[in-house]
C-alpha cells in the first residue's frame, strides 16, 4: 500500500525541488541591484497616484460563481467517476445532494444573465 503513495510523494518532492532550485538559481546568478526607483510600481510611465487597493465592483462575484460551478464542481466528479460503481446508491444520493446545492448557483446565474455571451 505504501509503495503507491511513495511514488506520489517522490513526484511532489521532485517538483518542489525543481521549483525552489530555479528560483534560487536566478536569485544567485542574476545581478541584484535593487534601487528605490527601480522597485517603484510601473504605471506606464507616470507617477502612481492614489492607492491601488480599491474595492472590486460587485459584478465580478458572478465570474467567481461560474468558476466554482464549472471548474471546482467538475473536479469532484473525477474521483466519483472512478468509484461510483462500488459506492452504489448511497454514493449517488451524496453526489446528488452535492449537485443539487450547486444547481441553485447555476439557476441564479441563468436568471442574472451572466451566461448570455454577447
Amino acid at each position: 500500500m505504501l509503495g503507491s503513495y511513495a511514488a506520489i510523494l517522490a513526484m511532489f518532492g521532485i517538483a518542489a525541488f525543481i521549483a525552489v532550485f530555479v528560483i534560487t538559481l536566478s536569485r544567485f546568478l542574476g545581478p541584484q541591484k535593487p534601487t528605490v526607483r527601480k522597485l517603484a510600481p510601473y504605471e506606464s510611465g507616470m507617477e502612481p497616484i492614489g492607492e491601488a487597493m480599491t474595492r472590486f465592483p460587485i459584478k465580478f462575484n458572478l465570474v467567481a460563481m461560474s468558476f466554482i460551478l464549472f471548474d471546482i464542481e467538475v473536479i469532484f466528479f473525477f474521483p466519483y467517476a472512478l468509484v461510483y460503481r462500488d459506492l452504489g446508491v448511497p454514493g449517488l444520493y451524496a453526489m446528488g445532494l452535492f449537485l443539487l446545492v450547486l444547481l441553485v448557483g447555476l439557476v441564479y446565474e441563468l436568471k442574472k444573465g451572466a451566461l448570455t455571451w454577447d
Partner: protein
Amino acid sequence: MGLETKAGDLGVVTTSLETVVNWGRTNAMWPLLFGLACCAIEMMGAQGANYDLSRFGMEINRASPRQADLIIVAGRVSRKMAPVIRRLYDQMSEPKWVIAMGDCASCGGVFNNYAIVQGVDEVIPVDVYVAGCPPRPEALIDGIVQLHKKVERMKLDGTLRDRTPIHV
C-alpha cells in the same frame, strides 16, 4: 554576478562563462516597445518583413520595462516626456542599454527650441547614437550590431568595459 563574487576570478573558467553569458545577452536582447515619433515608424519598418530585426534576436518588443534589456529612444523627447523616460529607464532591470535613434534623440536634431530636450543623454546615459532623420532601417541595424560588439566585451558583473558611446 553573484557566482563570480563568491568564487573569485577563476581566470579561464569565468572567461568562458563570460563569453557564454555575453553570447546569450547579445543574441536575445529584447527592446522595450517604446516609439515616440517618426523614428518609431522607421523602427517598425525595420521590424517589418524587408529588414527583419528579428534576425538579431530582437523578435519581441517587450511592453513592460521589467522584461526589456534595451530601450531604443526612437523619436524626439519633449520636456513633458523627459521624466517619463527617466522613470522607464530606472524601472528596467540590469544590465540595460540605450540606443538613441535619430538626430532628435541624439542631439535635439532639427528642433532646437523650448519644447525638445536637446538629446536624450540629458536624461539617461546612452550607449549607441544612431544618426539620421529618420535613420534608415539599415542604419538602425548597424547601430544594433555595434551595440552587440560592445556587449560581447562586457565583464560578468554587467559593467561595460569601455564606456565611450559609439557614434554610428
